[in-house]
């Protein structure tokens, strides 16, 4: 069972719709028990960093989430803001992140010929897969993914970088550390390309 964590700041409906479409067993989790019993987790997130962390904190789900991810090593997929939470913090706010990955979120900053680029980075873009892994198996050719964000993660350890994407400059659009994976883009809104990523996540052996 894949539990989509609902702490009030994510597009849980979209993710549930797509998991249903691919026939994966999934549920929306608002209580610690459901999270404790899940064998995979999805952490969505839409909105501002601090208010998201605050919601996650006050949801009462953090202790079980930490226990399952850090203790039991349950695979987790963080999406958009959910991925940014995996890091240590963000330029967007003052609250610390979960600290699972040595990464920080910064705002897009353009100069020179790129100065006119719009923020947020909103639309379809490509990703370059920087290291082999199960989540990008059997991808359709010319895959593209939907992005909408103003902040992106930076991490000094290249071993954590799963995918990169170029908007003005190349940035980290996917991170990985063992059973922890995060994407800045929205696979749940990326047609058959995102569907394949979810299929791969659902098929990953626990």
């Amino acid at each position, binding site marked *: 069972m894949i539990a989509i964590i609902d702490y009030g700041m994510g597009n849980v*409906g*979209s993710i549930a*719709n797509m998991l249903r479409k691919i026939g994966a067993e999934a549920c929306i989790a608002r209580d610690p028990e459901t999270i404790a019993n899940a064998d995979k987790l999805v952490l969505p997130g*839409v909105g501002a960093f601090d208010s998201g962390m605050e919601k996650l904190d006050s949801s009462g789900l953090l202790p079980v989430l930490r226990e399952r991810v850090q203790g039991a090593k349950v695979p987790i997929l963080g999406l958009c803001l959910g991925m940014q939470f995996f890091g240590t913090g963000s330029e967007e706010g003052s609250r610390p992140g979960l600290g699972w990955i040595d990464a920080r979120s910064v705002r897009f900053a353009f100069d020179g010929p790129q100065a006119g680029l719009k923020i*947020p980075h*909103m*639309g379809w873009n490509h990703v370059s897969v920087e290291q082999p892994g199960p989540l990008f198996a059997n991808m359709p050719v010319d895959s*593209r993914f939907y992005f909408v964000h*103003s902040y992106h993660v930076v991490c000094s350890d290249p071993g954590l970088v799963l995918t990169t994407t170029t908007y003005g400059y190349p940035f980290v659009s996917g991170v990985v550390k063992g059973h922890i994976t995060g994407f800045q883009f929205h696979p749940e809104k990326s047609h058959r390309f995102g569907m394949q990523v979810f299929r791969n996540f659902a098929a990953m052996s626990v």
Partner: protein
Amino acid sequence: MIQTRVIPCLLLRNLGLVKTVRFRKPTYVGDPINAVKIFNDKEVDELVFLDITATPERKKPPFELLSKIASQCFMPLSYGGGVRDLDDMTTLFSLGVEKVVLNSIAAEDPGFVRRAADRFGSSSVIVSIDVKKRFFGKPEVVTQGGRRKTGLDPVRFSVQMEEAGAGELFLNSVDRDGTMEGYDLPLIRQVVGAVGVPVVACGGAGSADDLRRAVADGGASAAAAGSLFVFQMPHRAVLINYPPAQVLRDLFRSTESR
């Protein structure tokens, strides 16, 4: 680099899909769920649904229908129409809508845009701006489905909405709506030049080249259209259509997307 978005803008009226001309004469064009399934198969970049009677008739957004629509949408989905409070927005996001479009309420209460952006993040809040030319050609923001004049200047209002926290502006020309005579490029240019957030151009697209011009000449970040994607010319027979990704890529190849 990012690909320019091309967005079908679909209008709802009494749970059916309609298309208007200059915001009037709604013509029934079919079942929205069926249309979504077709657009999904065609892998559209994004879909915008606007309920054109919700606000004027003081109705809530059609949540049940939107839930069905969202369950078939594997691309970003925006919805506008009848959104009057933050709880409406929470409900829409939980159904699977990505972005909520604010129109009448944004003009009546700019503070609402700020509260929405603070709660849900700017990138989930679109302000749509309907512009109509007055008798002597001066453009003006209108609300309530084009029924109410506000006296507001579109460029000044766009800046105000960006400052209030709108993550995207959906700029619609009432005079061009449904005419398929091309976008109001000077209007698009003026607004794009005044704001830093993405501007989606809507109203008037009659050909693929119009889409290209909205971006290449107007400076829009994305091009939206209604008639172009629901009618087949020359007789306006209903035909849900959308160009393949490769065609769109070639179309915008020479355009530096912003």
